[in-house]
């Protein structure tokens, strides 16, 4: 009789402790969930760049990975919580693993393609001066400068030279004209500068030598 009573007491204690632990764990997880939702809702957990690249543009590969990850994770949660008592599924179907594999590998390959180009990585915004020659003389041939614009929607640029007077001129189309012949002091270096109209912080310079 005594043994039976002791056994019953141990079972009761174990059940009571188990129930309490389960309730504490449930309450703790619930609080974590509330804290996450609250911080997401108030913006303390910033989701604005959830599917964005470092350049600030949204990424389709990130978006599809987000969708499939969320759907599969939510499905797993629902399947675990739905039966009474809750239980993990006996197995994860191969189709789900293949689905996640397609999604993740597509994301990785997409990033690999993207990182193969500077524009893909940083959303590069730059303008570069191209000239056929950077040496001329007073009274010599003009030099046509070309501006190669990358990452800007407006290709328009403005041209300027330094010093602004005395060592030739440059027109709005980038044509540098050296000083007229006979100007013996017209030697030295001229700095051609191009500035993107869309973003005046995007510039490039090229040096032309007057001999």
């Amino acid at each position: 009789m005594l043994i039976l009573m002791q056994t019953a007491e141990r079972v009761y204690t174990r059940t009571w402790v188990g129930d309490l632990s389960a309730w504490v764990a449930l309450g703790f997880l619930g609080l974590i969930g509330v804290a996450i939702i609250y911080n997401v809702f108030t913006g303390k957990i910033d989701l604005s760049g959830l599917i964005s690249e470092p350049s600030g543009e949204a990424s389709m590969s990130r978006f599809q990975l987000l969708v499939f990850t969320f759907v599969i994770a939510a499905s797993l949660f629902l399947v675990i919580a739905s039966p009474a008592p809750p239980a993990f599924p006996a197995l994860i179907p191969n189709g789900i693993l293949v689905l996640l594999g397609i999604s993740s590998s597509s994301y990785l390959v997409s990033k690999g393609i993207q990182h193969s180009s500077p524009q893909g990585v940083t959303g590069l915004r730059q303008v570069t001066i191209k000239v056929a020659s950077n040496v001329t003389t007073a009274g010599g041939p003009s030099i046509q400068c070309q501006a190669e614009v990358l990452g800007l929607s407006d290709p328009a640029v403005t041209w300027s030279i330094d010093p602004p007077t005395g060592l030739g001129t440059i027109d709005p189309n980038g044509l540098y004209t050296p000083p007229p012949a006979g100007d013996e002091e017209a030697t030295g270096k001229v700095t051609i500068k191009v500035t993107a109209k869309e973003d005046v912080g995007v510039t490039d310079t090229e040096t032309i030598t007057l001999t």
Partner: protein
Amino acid sequence: MPFTRIIWYEVVLFLGALAAIIAYRLLTGGINTNYLLYGTQRDGSKYFSPERLQLLLFTLGTAMFYLSDVLQNRNTGQLPDVPAQTLVLLGGSHAIYLGGKAYTMLFKKIAKESNDADTHADG
């Protein structure tokens, strides 16, 4: 209230709230979606990308199809499988997306460099 029902409500409320917030932010611009359907060429210019649009449609379609399957069979305690045909379609959609991206980012570069080399050789 039974312990298991509380677990059920806790999970559903958490996932539902998180999904609702993300969906709301996506629709109102709180989550940046600029240029989601646009690609970038090597010169940095943007273009509307049909391959991204088809991937978006296949992604949303497959996700909704699977989620509805889960909700109908959630009490079985097993995750439903994804049909092989769906996986093939999704794989094809991703292949088109990646192929288009590789073409605009890589193959045009190779073609341009090849043309430049030919021009220099001719010159």
